[in-house]
Each structure stands twice: as C-alpha cells, then as structure tokens.
C-alpha cells in the first residue's frame, strides 16, 4: 500500500526540529532513515499528520572517541557503524550485530537513532545498547536528558522519549582490554526479524566471568537484561551451575506467542543462547554439549 497523505517539513537544525515537535506533539513523526517508519506508514499502521525530516542535520551524524567514551550521533547509519574502525576497536559487539540488521540496501539508510527510538523488541541494536551499558542522550526544548539504555526501553515500540523530544546521540563506554562479547540470533533468513537473540558483553577474569551483561531480544516486550547471569559471575561455571542459571532465565522471561514461534520455543532458544554464550566466552565447548534444557 501507499502512505496516506501527510505534511512534510525538512528540519534545518535541532532547534527547528524541536519547535515543530512541540507545536505538533504526537501528530508529528520524526523521519530519520525511514527504514521502520516508512514500512509502518505504507502499511497504514500509522498515519502521522506531519513528517519532520531530520536527515539533513549533519550535527547528528558521526562517531567520535573522547577519552574512554564512544559517542555516536543518532543519524549514524548502520553501514557507517559496520565499516567504522572506531566501532570495531571499541565496541566490537556492535560491528558483529550490525551484520544481522536487515540487508545492505536497508543498512545504507537505516540509522542508530531511528532504530532505538522505534524500539522494536526484535531489534538487535536496542539489545546491544543495553548489553553495552549505553547512555541515550535526548534533547528537548528544556535541555538535555541522559537515560541509561536499560531504562530507555519501556515496552513494544515504547521508550522514555516524549513526542516533544529528539534522540540525538548515544554514549558507550570504550570496551576494556579484558572484555569479550557474544552475539547470536535465530532467524528464519539472514537479516529477518529474530525469533530469539542475545547480545552479551563480558569482562574476563582468568577462567571466570568477572562481569557479564546478557541482553536478550525478541523474547519480551523490550530488550531483557537477564538477572539470571548473576549465577554465572565470579564462579567456576559447571554444567550444573549453567543449568541452574538457565532455569532461572526461563522463569524470568515472559516471551510472546506470534506467527514466528510460540513462547515455549522462545524460552527454550534463550536458554540455548545462554549456554552458547557462556561456552564461547570461556572457550569451553563442553558447556554447550547439549542436554542442558
């Protein structure tokens, strides 16, 4: 189908965009790369009265390393993240995850800020932000707000962003030398929506995991930072300990049923991902030998 009629304004600055958003509230929608917004509009799932195109705001584009903080502008496209040596060096989890985000033609347009503001629970990037302990930077007319990624995502397509605000950037801590990451998703076709996925960031301490953040996606109404991983931190992980953590994970998750998979299958796949992740991070294939769940 085609999008229904709307008015169009090309923002000339962040201030200009904010003025338009304040004036039109939730009747307006921000257009960044359009790779989630345009499908929704073409399918008539949403029919905004005004589109505020922020695509020309160069100040929202780019990747910069400042001390131990990696700053990524909201308009930075997926292809820019994928090809960035700074991202590969300081947030390699993102480089790996981006390859799973849709297809080349989509990655040439889709933006980080757009993906985060859209907050599809099956998306890779929101989960990566949670795993990487990102700060989401939001600007409104009253000034700037900084929100931890964990608190930013509040439900299916729901975030802490109000209709009068703009997501302008994210900040990631530069990964430490002893850190390691894991990313995997189950999808019917490479680039399709995940049935269940996991983005994880860890700090290695000898043969143990000194710190571990596992953010599961497509298994809840938002990226889920698993509490069950506490059972795997600073202990020598045995198959029994892993099984215990997997059971706790299963109880913690509340996945949805849809045409792709029932909740029970998603819960099962999340446990499989947990085992694969622990096994891969520690380099211990026996932990992923099967029979866990």
């Amino acid at each position, binding site marked *: *189908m*085609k*999008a*229904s*009629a*709307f*008015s*169009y*304004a*090309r923002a000339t600055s962040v201030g200009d965009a904010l003025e338009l958003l304040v004036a039109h509230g939730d009747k307006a929608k921000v*257009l960044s790369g*359009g*790779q989630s917004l*345009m*499908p929704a509009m*073409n*399918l008539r799932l949403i029919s905004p009265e*005004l*589109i505020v*195109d922020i*695509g020309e705001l160069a100040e929202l584009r780019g990747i910069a390393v400042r001390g131990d903080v990696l700053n990524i502008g909201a308009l930075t496209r997926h*292809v820019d993240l994928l090809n960035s040596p700074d991202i590969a060096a300081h947030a390699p989890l993102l480089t790996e995850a981006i390859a799973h985000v*849709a*297809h*080349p*033609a*989509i990655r*040439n*347009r889709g933006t980080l800020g757009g993906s985060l503001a859209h907050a599809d629970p099956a998306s890779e990037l929101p989960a990566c932000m949670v795993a990487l302990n990102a700060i989401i930077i939001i600007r409104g007319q009253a000034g700037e707000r900084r929100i931890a990624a964990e608190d930013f995502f509040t439900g299916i397509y729901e975030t802490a962003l109000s209709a009068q605000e703009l997501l302008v950037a994210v900040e990631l801590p530069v990964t430490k030398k002893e850190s390691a990451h894991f990313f995997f998703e189950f999808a019917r*076709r*490479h*680039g399709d929506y995940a049935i269940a996925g996991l983005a994880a960031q860890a700090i290695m301490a000898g043969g143990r995991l000194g710190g571990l953040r596992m953010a599961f996606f497509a298994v809840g109404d938002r990226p889920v930072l698993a509490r069950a991983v506490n059972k795997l931190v600073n202990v020598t992980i045995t198959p029994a300990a892993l099984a215990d953590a997997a059971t706790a994970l299963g109880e913690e998750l509340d996945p949805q049923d849809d045409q792709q998979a029932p909740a029970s299958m998603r819960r099962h796949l999340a446990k499989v991902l947990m085992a694969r992740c622990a096994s891969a991070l520690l380099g211990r294939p026996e932990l992923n030998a099967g029979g866990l769940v």
Partner: protein
Amino acid sequence: MTALTQISLDVNGERVDAHVLPRLNLADFLREHLQLTGTHVGCEHGVCGACTVRVNGEIVRSCLMLAVQTHGASVQTIEGLSDSGEIADLQAAFRDRNALQCGFCAPGMLMAAQDLLKQHAEPDRKLIREHLSGNYCRCTGYHAIIDAVETTARRRMRREL
C-alpha cells in the same frame, strides 16, 4: 503543507525538476512521473527488494524513501545502469544461466549484485547469497542467480589481469 513540494535531482545523469506530494515514494516517482518502469514495486514495505535503486552511489529501497528526500541527490535506476553498459556482462550472464524467468525481481537483483561486485571483486557464494538476501526471487530458486554473479565476478577478474 500537504501541498506540492519542489524537488531537483539528477536521474541517470539528467537533471529533473518536479513538484511532488510528500507522500509520493521514490519508486512511484520514477515509475509514474518519469516513466522509468524498470524499477519494480513489489511489497511496498522494504522486504522484497524489487524496487532497489542507487541513491548517491548506494543501493536503497525506493519504496522506503520519499521523493522529497531525494532533493539534491543523484539517482540511478536499472535503465541508467543498463544504458551505460555498466552491467552488460552481468545481464548477459543472467541470460546465459537462466537467472531470470518472469523477470520481476531482475532489476533489483542486478542492482544488488552490481553493488556487491563493486565492493568485492571476488565474492564467494556465501557472500553473494548474503548480499542478495534482501531480494526475493519466486521463480529461479536462487542457484542460477548465484551462478551468474559468480561467473561475472570471475570474468571481470580475468579481464583485469
């Protein structure tokens, strides 16, 4: 503001000035305003890849881009790539290998394949599959398409030696 918006862009090397409604997507602009019907419209939500075109040298879904967003941009369609001879060898390989049947996906498939060959001179079959993973073909079962792209890559490599 739902009024017509003025845009100027470059399409296949020619300057185009037009007045368009904001809701008009690039695919429909190319097909209905410029009669460039080689760009096909399939799913209209970014899944099938039939509407793939180049904007400023990079492939995009023209159903997911508004015509008003192309103001000042350079757009190349399958007609442009075809007429310039840029993909003549790739098209010949598609023909030779029966890599198209009904032809609906072919323009988008050729766009995506040429994009890959520009970035990787010698892609293996896995990489070819991955790069074309956003383009649906409902006739060929894909193998012939992968063959055609692989053959073209090899021939281009030999030509450069």
